[in-house]
């Protein structure tokens, strides 16, 4: 094994080589005509299409507008998942009976891919906002619940004993003992939820939606505009990455703050 870590320079050199090879292969294959343009447009064509879509509309809206409507659905779905999943998880961590009741239901539903809720979501809530929000919810809910539950379940028993000796009631026990102790686990869960929710959003919009990036991609696919499809993929990737980076920063900030408090 090349066990010695590379120096910063070496890493940069190899990284650059990787990127150049990747882009070179892509544009070489396409501009030489080995792969038809319609099949895979060269990188510069995708880039110019991306810039063009920032201002000119496709499938009824410009790229930022599509992203806006996607993001709104996404925010609703994830917030709803957190608003239900986290409290339920904490309650399950405290009340054994609730745990015993919810866990079998949850285990039964766990193996159904979130995307399989699409038909019912469309039937119950339509294809505007409600349907996609429900699918995002289905994707983002499990990590919220599981992490809040684990966080509450594995609180140091000494803390609970001490609080109980002081006669703490159920509400204060959950809000002032379990919740603060579970925060790191909850935040980690939220990060996973945010990723899964974004993934579900794309799926939901590919199937049921009348606006949004996923919708734009399906429309572009229908009219064989590969560059537009790839623009959608890149936009989705960038927004997903920004969400992840922001949440990571939030998590780190929270850790630091708690570290100072402790």
């Amino acid at each position, binding site marked *: 094994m090349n066990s010695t870590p590379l120096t910063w320079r070496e890493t940069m050199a190899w990284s650059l080589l990787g990127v150049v090879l990747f882009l070179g292969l892509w544009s070489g294959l396409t501009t030489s005509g080995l792969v038809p343009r319609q099949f895979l447009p060269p990188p510069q064509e995708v880039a110019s299409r991306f810039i063009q879509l920032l201002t000119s509309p496709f499938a009824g809206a410009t790229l930022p507008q599509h992203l806006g409507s996607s993001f709104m659905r996404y925010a609703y779905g994830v917030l709803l998942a957190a608003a239900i999943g986290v409290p339920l998880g904490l309650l399950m961590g405290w009340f054994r009976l609730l745990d015993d009741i919810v866990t079998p239901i949850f285990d039964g539903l766990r193996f159904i891919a979130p995307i399989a809720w699409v038909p019912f979501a469309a039937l119950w809530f339509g294809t505007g906002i409600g349907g996609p929000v429900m699918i995002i919810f289905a994707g983002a809910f499990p990590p919220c619940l599981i992490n809040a539950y684990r966080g509450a379940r594995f609180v140091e028993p000494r803390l609970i004993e001490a609080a109980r000796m002081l006669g703490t009631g159920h509400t204060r026990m959950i809000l002032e003992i379990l919740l603060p102790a579970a925060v790191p686990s909850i935040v980690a869960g939220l990060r996973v939820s945010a990723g899964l929710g974004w993934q579900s959003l794309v799926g939901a919009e590919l199937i049921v939606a009348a606006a949004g990036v996923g919708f734009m991609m399906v429309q572009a696919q229908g009219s064989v505009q590969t560059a537009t499809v790839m623009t959608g*993929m890149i936009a989705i990737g960038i927004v997903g990455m920004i969400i992840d980076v922001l949440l990571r920063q939030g998590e780190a900030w929270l850790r630091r703050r708690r570290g100072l408090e402790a």
Partner: protein
Amino acid sequence: MIGRRGWIGLGTVAALIALWFLLTTVTGIVSGARFPSPAEFWLSLRQIWGRGYAGGQLISHALHSLKLVAMGFAVAIATGIPLGLWMGWNRKAEAAINPVFLVIRPIPPLAWIPLAILWLGLGDSAKILVIWFSAFVPSVINTFAGVRNIDRPMIEAARMLGTPRWRMVREVIAPAASPLIFTGLRLSLQASWTTLVAAELVGALVGVGFVLNMAQQDLYPGMILVGMVTVGLLGWATTVLLGMVERRALSWNMAARD
């Protein structure tokens, strides 16, 4: 022996079924156009089981989906694990491949579906391609992490004994990384099912996702539920199967037993 937990679990399931009856058949609070009654569910199940629906019987739809997941998953493992091992082993490979990964990874696997359809059409190959994309990333990342987490002294010891490179990979690196590799495989399997169902919902001619799609277009809640139950059962069965393989493969590892 069923413990307290088991009894409450059974009670919950019984209560849910009773509630389902009560809300649909008995009182009709939930109309059949929104959610099927148990009788409607049963009729839909019998229909697709015997006469078939959406161009085939339930078994053939399920087997087709299962086949595609198995193939996509197999291709993903066959490419993902070696790449992860190589990136873990060779720092130069890691440095060269990582940036490409960083660019491609944030794109959700489902976002590849339209491109895959453009490239390969609505047939099986497009689905296998997307499953491969979605299952590939977790395999690579976890294998890579597994190699990087190996205790250094173990590798040093093996190297001091003059272990040749190939035996090193096969008998030291791969086994030591295998717990994390299996974590990756479980994530890959889950991703495979999600992706397949989504791909079949977007465009297919056969498969459980296609059944869901047809049932949605026919406004047929009973069949939607049948499709969802099938998706859940298939996901569950393959996960159990993978768990069995994992227990066999890791039987030497005490940590994996609990």
